[in-house]
């Protein structure tokens, strides 16, 4: 029973992780950049949801309608103004740039919102469905999961069917070839980064009702998102989705059977294990040597 | 009967569903100048990468100096005496020309002074002495190719694999390079050439293998190859005119 409970919580949380992971994977695939500001983008989503709720009284899940386009635009502009300038630079410089941007975001948030953790409590924050078998399914988690499925499906269809989506996939597979075929790869980069940011912010907003919201909250999600991407295979959107669910479950099981103190350590050890044993991940296109 | 220095035996290389090299076999004798030619995408560079340890072969054997070298790392292959150049030159850009060649020389010595001496000798042989202190990244493409040659020669290889070393060069540059290569062979090194420039290939090679779409199409002397109908057809009629 405990096992199934743990499994279910893990899958539900894993869905949100998957969203963050997919965002990062998309950026990695199209731009070949590790975005170290990803966690801070999630944090911004958390605060957007928080203030939409406390100032405008909009339910966090409904505020997604506003958060998604706003964060997409933010990411798009971020890419155009900053990231695009280092697209051909050595990757360590790209990483440092995104770290710098992340530091600016988190510390501006610290100055603006102070380090007091905020809590977003909706009327149903602690509600749960209690099944006959004794399982308790948290309503916020369930709603997040369902929304994640909806967004992932839309994204999947977009990538598969729309012309922009196909252009994105082409750029991801081979940037040079895509350029030769007439695809505006610079625009693709900006779009990919915009989508990645929107997904990160969405994940943040979805998680906001169940986490402490504070300016440094994004950092623990950063390495987790990388773990998900590497596990799924850098650049593979499907892989990141699967990876997210796996990490969610691993974390949940670790919390239940070992302790919550060690759950992050276990995830990071898993990360190193993947690098050691199967660096190309589950669905990877790029690999180690 | 002397064993060939390099023996490629039924080598296959697949990338997932893509068959890049299919059942290729040939042998290179000591001190030969051996040509590996074929249209673009024929699998020549892939074969080079398999031979020198950058790709693992899917199946087949690579035997160098009587030793199976299939799964060795590239640096181990180099230390056994097989060195290669790159189709797209790889100068160590932030280092000087002399330092580039010194790094090659370090594979046979630990001493700084000895490496510097050997490097200077190598630069003189290819005619780059005047550029010794210049940054490698600042050279023209022709000089970069010469630098790459000097660098691998500094490793004192038994066999040299040259991947399109004449690519992007004009006639004078090509002729100079070919003369250097003839001298290198006289000094005892075996040479394997990937090349597109048919004039260069036929003028310098003792023996040629032609690849097309990963398969060995033909093998023989330059005269035999240039008369071979299949080879001419593979080069799409715009190939070599005798």
């Amino acid at each position, binding site marked *: 029973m405990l096992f199934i409970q743990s499994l279910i919580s893990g899958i539900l949380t894993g869905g949100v992780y998957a969203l963050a992971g997919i965002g990062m994977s998309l950026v990695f695939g199209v731009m070949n950049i*590790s975005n170290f500001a990803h966690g801070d983008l999630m944090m911004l989503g958390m605060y957007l949801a928080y203030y939409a709720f406390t100032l405008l009284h909009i339910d966090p899940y409904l505020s997604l309608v506003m958060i998604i386009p706003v964060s997409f635009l933010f990411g798009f502009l971020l890419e155009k103004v900053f990231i695009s300038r*280092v697209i051909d*630079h050595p990757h*360590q*410089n790209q*990483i*440092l*740039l995104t*770290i*710098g*941007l992340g*530091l*600016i975001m988190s*510390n*501006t948030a*610290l*100055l603006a919102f102070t380090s007091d953790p905020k809590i977003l409590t909706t009327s149903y924050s602690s509600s749960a469905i209690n099944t006959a078998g004794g399982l308790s399914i948290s309503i916020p988690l369930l709603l997040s999961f369902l929304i994640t499925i909806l967004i992932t499906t839309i994204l999947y269809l977009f990538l598969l069917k729309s012309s922009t989506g196909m252009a994105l996939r082409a750029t991801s597979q081979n940037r040079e070839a895509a350029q030769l075929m007439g695809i505006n790869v610079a625009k693709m980069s900006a779009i990919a980064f915009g989508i990645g940011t929107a997904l990160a912010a969405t994940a943040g907003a979805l998680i906001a009702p169940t986490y402490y919201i504070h300016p440094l909250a994004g950092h623990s999600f950063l*390495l987790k998102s*990388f773990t998900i991407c*590497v596990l799924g295979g850098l650049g593979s959107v499907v892989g990141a989705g699967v990876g997210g669910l796996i990490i969610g479950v691993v974390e949940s099981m670790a919390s239940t059977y070992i302790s919550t*103190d*060690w759950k*992050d*350590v276990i995830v*990071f*050890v898993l*990360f*190193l294990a993947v*690098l*050691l044993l199967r660096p190309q991940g589950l669905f990877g296109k*790029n690999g*180690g*040597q | 009967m002397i064993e060939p220095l390099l023996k490629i035996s039924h080598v296959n290389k697949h990338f997932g569903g893509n068959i890049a090299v299919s059942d290729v076999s040939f042998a290179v004798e000591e001190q030969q100048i051996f040509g590996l030619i074929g249209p673009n995408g024929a699998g020549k560079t892939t074969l080079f990468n398999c031979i*020198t340890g*950058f790709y693992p072969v899917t199946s087949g054997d690579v035997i160098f100096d009587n030793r199976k070298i299939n799964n060795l*790392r*590239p*640096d181990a292959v*180099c*230390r056994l005496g097989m*060195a*290669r150049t*790159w189709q797209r030159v790889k*100068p*160590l*850009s*932030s*280092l000087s020309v002399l*330092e580039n060649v*010194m*790094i*090659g020389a*370090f*594979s046979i010595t*630990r001493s*700084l002074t000895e*490496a510097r001496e050997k490097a200077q000798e190598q630069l003189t042989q290819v005619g780059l002495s005047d550029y010794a202190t210049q940054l490698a990244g600042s050279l023209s493409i022709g000089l970069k190719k010469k630098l790459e040659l000097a*660098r*691998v020669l500094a*490793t004192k290889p038994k066999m040299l694999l040259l991947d399109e070393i004449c690519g992007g060069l004009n006639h004078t540059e090509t002729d100079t390079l070919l003369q250097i290569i003839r001298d290198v062979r006289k000094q005892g090194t075996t040479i394997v050439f990937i090349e597109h420039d048919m004039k260069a290939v036929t003028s310098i090679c003792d023996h040629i293998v032609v690849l097309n779409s990963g398969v060995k199409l033909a093998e023989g002397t330059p005269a035999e190859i240039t008369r071979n109908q299949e080879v001419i057809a593979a080069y799409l009629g715009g190939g070599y005119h005798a």
Partner: protein
Amino acid sequence: MKQLIIVALLAALAAAIPSLLGENPYIIGLLISVLMMAALSSAWNIIGGFAGQYSFGHAAYFGAGAYTTMILISSWNVNPLAGMVAGIAIAAVIALITGSIVFGLRGHYFALASIAVAEIIRLSVLNFEFTGGAQGILLANVTLWGLDLNSKDPFYYGMLLLLVVTLAVTIWLRKSKTGYYLQAIREDQDAASSLGINLARYKNRSLLLSAALTSVAGSLYSVYIRFIDTSAVLDLRLSIEIILTAIIGGVGTLWGPVLGAILLVPLAEMLRSNVIGDSLVKLGIVSETSALGVFLSENLAHAHVLVYGIITVLCILYMPKGILGLFRRIK
């Protein structure tokens, strides 16, 4: 050789400073911080600037030195120097483990793995009893051969010596086969491999060297401050600060990290102690009671990380080779 002489001269000058300064613990303390950051960045430069492998988790080695030394002294009364050697051993093990996992792989993996290793260590230290958990470790008393360890001077000289050793190692590397091989790896790994360079072996060597020097700094720091916890010695921010210091000065150069430390450490200190805010008020530029004045006095002290972020972005965009890189080619 010439550079070694310059290092020796500057070191001699630096060694004279405490006596010239007399009783000024604040300045000495600041200089110790500068020397330490210079040493840390120079040590990082060996793997980051030379070999081109950016470790984003170097705090792991600093923390290894600090925690090993502290635990051995406080629990078993071990001589601090022995504690330092033990710290080096632990750091070496961490370096070997990290290297063996990633140095066979290409691309971004080393950066990510180095962070993962550092975080695993930080979280583990937080969770264990014998490492003090979240409380950290406090050292009541420590002695070494009759030296007065309550004064700052021994630590000034200790950090200075470490910096000199690190610079000397860097100078030696540039003129050795190992150093040349590392630079080849940095420039083009495939080319390096094809020239007979065993990539993993040389990357491991440079990481070991870098880790050992970094851990010595950690050991010195722990005995100097007499209190450590994970946020002081194992934090990601420290790792980033080390890299930033090297980048601003000029990554891959001999003096770049030192220059970076000389610029950034006092800047951070001025922000932290609100010197800048106070001077703006004194100069009359900002009125003390205005909204901006109040905001500055309350917040500028916390803003030094924000300033770091801005400097990082500006540096990468406009000055990626650092200040020294503007003046001469990377060597």
